[in-house]
């Protein structure tokens, strides 16, 4: 139910023609904020990726970049603040209170909303994780402001507005969305969409501390427990260095074994395009693309994937993209670096064998040493 899916400038010229007339109450909203997501004691990497983007926006606007850290009192929060400075923040807001130990919507939404109302940022960025989406949706509703989900590009316009670009229409086109007359301008970005910025050791800068205006008794939802994912069974696609994926061109569910075989031979993670998940050939956590995982591997091999935009935006950050497809006109050849027009079902076993032949001597050396 997004803006994007319902209107385009052609369909609703009235909307694209909306003028910027920022009401007086928003005129003192300044600076760029990034919400730092704490995940089991560590900062989620997407928060650093956002600090990198936030830094660029803040520099263009000639304003400050602030990190926001919410968590339980103690080392974890202080460490996260130090990391925010190392990744480019000028200042950090901390709300530390025992109810913020585990993520729950009520205390987190309350803390973030209060901070925004007190310090008035013009831009607020969050990771499009389960946590970030849960939080951003309710904070934007309370603040009655615009929120653009899953952006693939952020920029500042000539008049200082945030231009947030995201795929639309199921990923077949891109659109640029503005929150012209409300503040803050909120956006979420999925993990790995933006590059990881360089970490620079810096002294801890200005830290502003705030209290949480809620106590545990006020909070309806209680955390009973947390079951960490079985790491070996879960796909860690987003952060894998090498990924092999299959698409509809594989023709049948059992041919996905060819993708898995190649992935195993070269130590890669395996994945698939969206239609395969919809057919039930692979679980949703293996889906690569706009609605699945965004990846930035050093090598990506796409077998039998045509390369719809919704897939493209999920893999464009890869250093080297190899595409195998029978159709020489498949869109994937427009953004792959190396292409082979051939049947993936026949070619994958040959490639697996060739890799095994080439790589096994090294592995033997490794085992011997």
């Amino acid at each position: 139910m997004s803006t994007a899916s319902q209107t385009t400038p052609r369909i609703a010229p009235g909307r694209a023609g909306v003028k910027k007339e920022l009401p007086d109450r928003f005129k003192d909203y300044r600076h760029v904020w990034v919400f730092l997501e704490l995940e089991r004691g560590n900062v989620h990497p997407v928060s650093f990726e956002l600090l990198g983007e936030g830094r660029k926006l803040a520099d263009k606007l000639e304003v400050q970049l602030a990190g926001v850290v919410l968590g339980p009192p103690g080392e974890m929060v202080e460490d996260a603040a130090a990391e925010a400075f190392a990744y480019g923040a000028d200042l950090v807001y901390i709300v530390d209170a025992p109810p913020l130990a585990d993520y729950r919507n009520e205390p987190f939404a309350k803390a973030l909303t209060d901070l925004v109302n007190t310090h008035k940022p013009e831009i607020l960025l969050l990771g499009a994780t389960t946590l970030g989406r849960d939080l951003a949706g309710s904070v934007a509703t309370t603040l009655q402001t615009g929120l653009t989900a899953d952006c693939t590009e952020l920029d500042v316009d000539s008049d200082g507005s945030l231009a947030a670009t995201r795929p639309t229409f199921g990923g077949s086109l891109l659109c640029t969305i503005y929150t012209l007359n409300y503040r803050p301008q909120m956006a979420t970005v999925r993990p790995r969409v933006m590059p990881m910025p360089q970490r620079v050791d810096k002294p801890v800068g200005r830290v502003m501390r705030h209290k949480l205006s809620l106590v545990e008794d006020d909070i309806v939802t209680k955390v009973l427990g947390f079951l960490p994912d079985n790491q070996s069974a879960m796909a860690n696609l987003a952060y894998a260095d090498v990924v092999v994926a299959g698409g509809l061109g594989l023709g049948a569910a059992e041919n996905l074994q060819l993708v898995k075989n190649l992935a195993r031979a070269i130590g890669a993670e395996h994945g698939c395009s969206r239609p395969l998940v919809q057919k039930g050939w692979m679980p949703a956590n293996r889906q690569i693309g706009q609605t699945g995982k965004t990846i930035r591997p050093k090598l990506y091999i796409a077998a039998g994937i045509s390369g719809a935009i919704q897939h493209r935006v999920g893999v464009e950050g890869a250093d080297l993209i190899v595409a195998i497809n029978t159709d020489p006109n498949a869109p994937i050849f427009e953004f792959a670096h190396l292409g082979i027009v051939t049947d993936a079902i026949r070619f994958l076993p040959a490639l697996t064998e060739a890799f095994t032949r080439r790589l096994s001597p090294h592995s033997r050396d490794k085992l011997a040493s």
Partner: protein
Amino acid sequence: MHIVICIKQVPDSAQIRVHPVTNTIMRQGVPTIINPYDLFALEEALKLRDVHGGEVTVLTMGPPMAEDSLRKALGYGADRAVLLTDRYFAGSDTLATSFALSQAIAKIGETFGRPDIVFTGKQTIDGDTAQVGPGIAKRLDLSQLTYVAKIASIDLDTREIEVARRAEGGTQLLKSRLPCLITMLEDTNEIRRGSLQQALCAARSQVVKWTAADAGIDDLTRCGLRGSPTVVKRVFAPTARAESAAQIDTAERGLQDIADELIADILTRRPALEHELAFNSGT
């Protein structure tokens, strides 16, 4: 118990085509479906009703033709369907959508009994924002339970609910209270086949149609385009990379030969990968 489930009629994305010259969406003839993520929530709602008794009301906002998806939901076994349709809703972004839906849910509560649970799908396949569910929860002051993988228990006397929800890096077990809003994770269950009787019932039953005024919405400035803080300025196709893929010649060659050339090409372009692949390789 009374359960409200919000669904959306969406174009079948597998069949969306973009006009090659004008870059506009070619909507003609694209079939519509119930947003697939909503079906997991609908089945969960129907299962809860089967266990605890009560009614399932299905709600959608959209053009008059969205009635089709409500009829489908009735065919699966929903008890009542409400279509929120009005030209004032046109162009709604997620904030305006959650406003209109929450007003309608409040009205459903007044008219048919206050809901214990409001369900939505995890997100839609056309917008993909996952924002409307949290928006409804905030506006109606419902406990917000997103990405729920399993409802472990519901106690209608104590009004307590326990769920497992997908979180970053694991599953969070939460205890909360009714009324709540649940966005249901995918692959949690499979939509039932409605019975013949339900199909007949669906064809005969009335879909309740509400305009903005019927739903008790007085402030039309919060609806549709006017109520949407986001503005879509530009829709465009991504630019192609300057050069397309370097093709490896496959004519009259053995597959092994082609594979060897591909690997050589990969390692020429990214020499560091040799170490990476060898290191990763389990053989």
